[in-house]
């Protein structure tokens, strides 16, 4: 008898799970608009920070109301997207009809023939020309979506107490770091040096420093690269950087700023929303950062839109419509005002909330000194070489010239084995 009750209970649990799995979830909203695309359902993949999701979801709801197209939002990371699309393109079964991809990780998608040619899509004249995605073999595979650039966050109370102001040159930078260390008892400046593949913080940080010294990250052993690494090595050796820099990436930098482990850090602008959410944004000064001996350098990140190869019919039309909607003035204005994203358009400005104005201004200045990372198939090898160089030169104190010569050779070998032209043309 007891055994039967247990069996019945187990069966009821399983049936309950089945019911939830098959029919659970939110009630689906019925698109209200009618039109040629009404009733079509597409999935848009965009890897967003949690604080950025709401604004994008609002836009998708607006698009749905206007066109009758149901858009599901999902998130496939930049590193996973090529494999995911490979499965879908090879099988002809698409679960993603439009994706936003990091503007660095585009070469792989083109080389593996995973994306549709969008050369026929008209790009609005209001799109800033410098922000139009590069062409591959004369074909436009990607559409502009959102550029992004890191800015510098400075803890104003700590800076005032230490008697320093935001650095404008690398000499200032070192002097400020030393004074902050003296005031705090340990390094209070973090560098984002956590190693993540493809689009990681370490690659961005090292690229910016190398370019600011006049070097080329794809070469890595030119005089600018050696000088940049030597400078950072010296600062690390003297304890001017917080040890947490080894683990610092986009989200931990926010925590370091919040917890005052770091009093000065460079990070992506979503940090502003995070600090505002913690009600401490007024403690920070946001500015574009300092200038290296050669120039100011800010890696232009951000995302572009693409359509997987093989998406056809109404789903393709809906994907194109959504892409055009996301680059419209109205949509870009929403993204500017709610996410503090810089706009790809020249006419979607001036809607930034007062508390985010300084961030937005800093972004505009930084974009003017923007540097596009080259879309080369061997970029992962470049990042691996950078990671090795950071470990050996900065952490272990090895000679910069010797190490960078070795890493340069590794990059050259990898580039040639992948059939790329090396050395690359000037960036």
């Amino acid at each position: 008898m007891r055994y039967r009750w247990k069996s019945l209970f187990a069966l009821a649990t399983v049936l309950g799970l089945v019911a939830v799995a098959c029919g659970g979830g939110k009630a689906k909203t019925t698109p209200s608009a009618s039109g040629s695309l009404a009733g079509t359902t597409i999935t848009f993949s965009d890897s967003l920070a949690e604080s950025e999701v709401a604004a994008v979801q609002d836009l998708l709801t607006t698009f749905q109301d206007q066109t009758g197209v149901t858009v599901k939002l999902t998130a496939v990371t930049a590193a996973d997207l090529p494999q995911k699309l490979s499965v879908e393109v090879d099988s002809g079964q698409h679960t993603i009809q439009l994706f936003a991809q990091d503007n660095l990780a585009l070469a792989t998608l083109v080389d593996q023939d995973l994306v549709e040619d969008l050369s026929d899509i008209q790009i609005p004249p209001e799109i800033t020309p410098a922000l139009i995605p590069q062409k591959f073999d004369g074909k436009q595979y990607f559409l502009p979506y959102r550029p992004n650039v890191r800015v510098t966050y400075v803890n104003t109370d700590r800076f005032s107490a230490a008697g320093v102001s935001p650095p404008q040159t690398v000499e200032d930078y070192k002097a400020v770091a030393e004074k902050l260390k003296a005031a705090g008892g340990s390094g209070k400046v973090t560098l984002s040096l956590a190693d993540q593949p493809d689009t990681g913080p370490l690659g961005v940080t090292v690229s910016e420093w190398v370019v600011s010294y006049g070097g080329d990250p794809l070469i890595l052993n030119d005089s600018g690269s050696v000088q940049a690494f030597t400078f950072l090595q010296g600062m690390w050796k003297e304890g001017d950087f917080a040890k947490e820099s080894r683990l610092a990436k986009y989200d931990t930098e926010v925590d370091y700023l919040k917890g005052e482990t770091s009093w000065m850090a460079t990070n992506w602008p979503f940090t502003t929303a995070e600090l505002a959410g913690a009600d401490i944004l007024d403690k920070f000064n946001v500015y574009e950062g300092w200038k290296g001996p050669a120039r100011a350098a800010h890696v232009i990140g951000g995302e572009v839109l693409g359509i997987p190869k093989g998406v056809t019919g109404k789903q393709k039309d809906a994907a194109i419509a959504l892409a055009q909607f996301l680059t419209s003035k109205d949509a870009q204005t929403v993204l500017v005002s709610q996410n503090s994203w810089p706009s790809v358009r020249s006419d979607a400005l001036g809607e930034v909330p007062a508390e985010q104005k300084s961030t937005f201004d800093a972004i505009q200045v930084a974009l003017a000194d923007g540097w596009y990372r080259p879309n080369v198939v061997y970029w992962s090898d470049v990042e691996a070489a950078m990671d090795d160089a950071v470990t050996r030169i900065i952490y272990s104190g090895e000679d910069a010239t010797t190490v960078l010569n070795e890493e340069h050779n590794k990059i050259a070998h990898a580039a040639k084995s992948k059939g790329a032209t090396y050395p690359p043309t000037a960036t």
Partner: protein
Amino acid sequence: MSIAVTTKGFRRTRRDRLEVPLKLTFPLWVIGSVLLVLFPIYLIFMVSFAPGSALFGERPQLVVTNYTLQPWKDVFQTGGIMSPLVKSLFVASATTVLAIIIAAPAAYVISRLRPAIRYTVVIGLLVTRMFPEFTIGISVATQFAKWGLLDTYIGLILAHLIGSLPFIAWILVGTFETIPIDLEEAAHIDGASRMGTLIRVVFPIAAGGIAVASLFVWLYSWNEFLYARLMTTNQLTLPLKVFQAIDRGSSQEMATVAAILTLPIVLIVYFLQRYLRPGALTGAVKG
């Protein structure tokens, strides 16, 4: 060990000399090992209840006193955790049930083959597990996609069976091998059919081994990531949710989702622990 007794007393053996140090160090070794194993789990739960200031302040705390439930509230209210949780529970449970239904009779048959053939089949099962799943994952996912199985429960269950069936069959072959054929013959004599003998005599004796094998399959399916990543877009599993939290969430969100991933494992192991003892995989020998 011999103890030579002399006129002056006992001669101490090597074991006697080690006895006191062992008595002193063994508990310390046990405590140290337990702490080493449990510390990462403690960290996960601690971070999930810790405010940011406790983790990333100037002096991160090892024991959080000012805990917060906000990350758990955020994950359950806005993090979309229920759908992945239900999907992972269902897929893992269904994979386990199907794996037992398919593999148990097969393992029984294999265990009754002649030794040369039996060992050849068992080695063949093991060889399939030697290849990293990554090498075949994309091909399998592509074929499943052609069959329209992307973003479906059944697709993921079938993908998980690919990895779990050889493993569970291998375990159960060893379990059934220890069950004497005499018991089956006795059941036949008493009038039981082949299937009746299997269900009423063999399987109950092998229950311990089947339970342990089920646990392994359930854990494998619960934690499986590759096929989930390739074959799901809108219906994530819980491991994918953890990955998503690692990629774009805060440390507390990541720890909270990881803690949710861990809880069912703790519960299931707790309820199945009576089977997790030496000899559980050898069945029971009676008579």
